[in-house]
């Protein structure tokens, strides 16, 4: 299991340039090209975007979808190749890897599957685990059989039934979330779920738990604020999001800052430097490809601790009448700006953010030292 996971991580690191290019393109689209993008809304050119850039947007979206799909397929194929390159003869490798490519493409062929990075190790484990259990002379046949079974599952579920387990999971979560959290402990539970989801590679989970002003609790807060009444749900997800989503669920931004501080006297890989802007914009997956943070138990523990501390500090500040985040923000607002914009108290929230990130750097210090010692940094 350990070697398989390492093979997946190394393949992910090899894909970092592609992931970075796609992530930067995604951010550019979110900020500038979409009709509801940040600058389109704040500068008021959203309406003319549809007529001028409608086709461009569609092409960019298609490029991103296929790009991430190709990335996923390559990670799986490279990982399998690393693990089996000594076991099979030339033609056997070719046949197996071709089959794995086709099946992986089919597995990642739904919008709901893309960016759920958990598919990558699951595919590798699903093929490698039975192979490692049998004698060498049977390994090739078992590898082919396992791949075909996965292919049958993918074709049945995705192409015939037009279903996706990730899509079903998202729908289930949306139903569970309902009107949104109203108590601090509920918000904490959803936060934990999002952190765990991110760590596992279930982006579908974290995506559903992002702050949404149309959720009942958030909307009631908004209406109360507009009518100058007491905010009814101060400890719901929307106001508390201002303290806990820096760099995505799990505070990946704090992890990155800690890493950069500890590496200040060492040469930094250029590709790692290029993950800075995406991480600031809560697009954490480029960082997850650069550093071995996913499926790392020590990192998960620290993420949970840091997120809980941030939530506690945030709740305390709100209880002490810090202006809560209740108002609208443009789509694509990174968390680092969310609190200030949604509360109209920019300076206060900048101060709070700096203090919280400083606290998180202390919490992440030890686990990042271990990451440095492991030496597993992409393109170092």
């Amino acid at each position, binding site marked *: 299991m350990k070697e398989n996971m390492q093979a997946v991580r190394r393949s992910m690191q090899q894909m970092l340039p592609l992931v970075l290019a796609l992530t930067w393109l995604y951010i550019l689209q979110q900020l500038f090209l979409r009709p509801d993008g*940040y*600058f389109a*809304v*704040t*500068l008021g050119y959203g309406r003319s975007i549809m007529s001028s850039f409608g086709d461009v947007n569609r092409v960019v979206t298609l490029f991103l979808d296929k790009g991430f799909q190709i990335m996923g397929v390559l990670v799986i194929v490279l990982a399998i190749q690393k693990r089996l390159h000594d076991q099979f003869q030339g033609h056997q490798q070719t046949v197996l890897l071709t089959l794995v490519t086709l099946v992986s493409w089919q597995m990642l062929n739904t919008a709901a599957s893309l960016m759920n990075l958990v598919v990558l190790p699951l595919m590798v484990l699903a093929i490698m685990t039975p192979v490692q259990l049998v004698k060498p002379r049977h390994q090739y046949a078992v590898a082919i059989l396992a791949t075909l079974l996965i292919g049958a599952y993918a074709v049945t579920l995705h192409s015939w039934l037009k279903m996706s387990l990730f899509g079903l999971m998202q729908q289930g979560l949306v139903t569970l979330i309902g009107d949104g959290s109203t108590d601090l402990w509920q918000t904490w539970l959803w936060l934990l779920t999002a952190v765990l989801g991110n760590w596992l590679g279930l982006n579908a989970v974290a995506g559903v738990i992002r702050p949404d*002003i*149309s959720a009942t609790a958030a*909307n009631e807060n*908004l*209406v109360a604020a*507009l*009518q*100058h009444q007491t905010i009814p749900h101060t400890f719901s997800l929307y106001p508390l999001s201002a303290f806990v989503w820096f760099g995505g669920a799990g505070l990946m931004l704090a992890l990155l800052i800690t890493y950069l501080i500890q590496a200040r006297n060492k*040469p*930094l890989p*250029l590709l790692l*430097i*290029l993950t*800075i*802007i995406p991480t*600031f914009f809560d697009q954490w997956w480029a960082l997850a490809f650069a550093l071995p943070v996913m499926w790392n138990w020590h990192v998960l523990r620290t993420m949970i601790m840091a997120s809980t501390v941030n939530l506690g500090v945030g709740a305390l500040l709100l209880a002490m009448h810090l202006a809560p985040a209740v*108002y*609208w*923000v*443009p789509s694509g*607002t*990174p968390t*680092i*700006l969310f609190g*200030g*914009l*949604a509360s*109209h108290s*920019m300076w206060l929230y900048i101060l709070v953010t700096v203090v919280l990130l400083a606290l998180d750097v202390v919490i992440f210090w030890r686990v990042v030292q271990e990451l440095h010692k492991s030496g597993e940094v992409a393109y170092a």
Partner: protein
Amino acid sequence: MRKRWLILILGLLGVLLLTMAVLGLRWSQSKTTTNQRIYNSRMTPTILIPGSSASQNRFDQLISQLNKGNNKHSLVKVTVKTDSSMVTTGKVRNGDLAPYFVVAFENNHDGYASIKKQASWFNEALQMLQKKYRFRQFQAIGHSNGGLIWTRFLEKYYDSDSQQVNVLMTIGTPYNFEETNPNNRTQMLQDFIRDRDNLPSDLTVYSIMGTETYDDDGIVPEQSVQTGKFVFQKQVAHFTEITVTGDDAQHSDLPQNQQIVDLIQQYVLPKSQGVPGNRK
């Protein structure tokens, strides 16, 4: 070299975040200020949309009947031109909290393609009215295709952040155009049914049907009006179908029908209406 890249990236990040902060704050504060006025407004107008081939004067007789006695309210008419410009006549008298707004279209042709355009124009007209008169709550009335425009607006454009519609009354509205067989669903009806999840769940809908013969009001088959149930039933808070017969039950006369006037007064108009010169 790497340090230069780091400085470049951090510099770019700083400029980007600063620009976003300034623009975002300005946008958010502007949206909040506009909506604060809207949310704290006590005005609840009744907005009427006429049917195809009808003009902004379609409801004059209806509004005269509603304005009988001491209960007089202002009437503002908006005509949306094909280039999206708007011509407004009339004004809201000071203190009038329940005026009537009629929104008509220069292109008032029949057909699904026209209805889609008219709904988009209506959305623009409503935003103009909201900005000018600063209201959030309103009541909705649509005669004939006017009801279709309301339905499309509610499914495609309605913004629950800045709008709240309490009641919708559609009068002689052909949800399935001229189809008499409810199993033969027009594209428009199919689209309405597909997008019905977007309808406000707290809305009360009255669908009024006139019958001159036993099958139609002279133009719209009753089966077509009745297909409205596939759109609204189990989606909105309340859905009621009412059949009106007798005098003025022909399609074009329905807005003047006394029973419909009574229904509007009873179920649509706000109960406590601010009337100019009648403030307590």
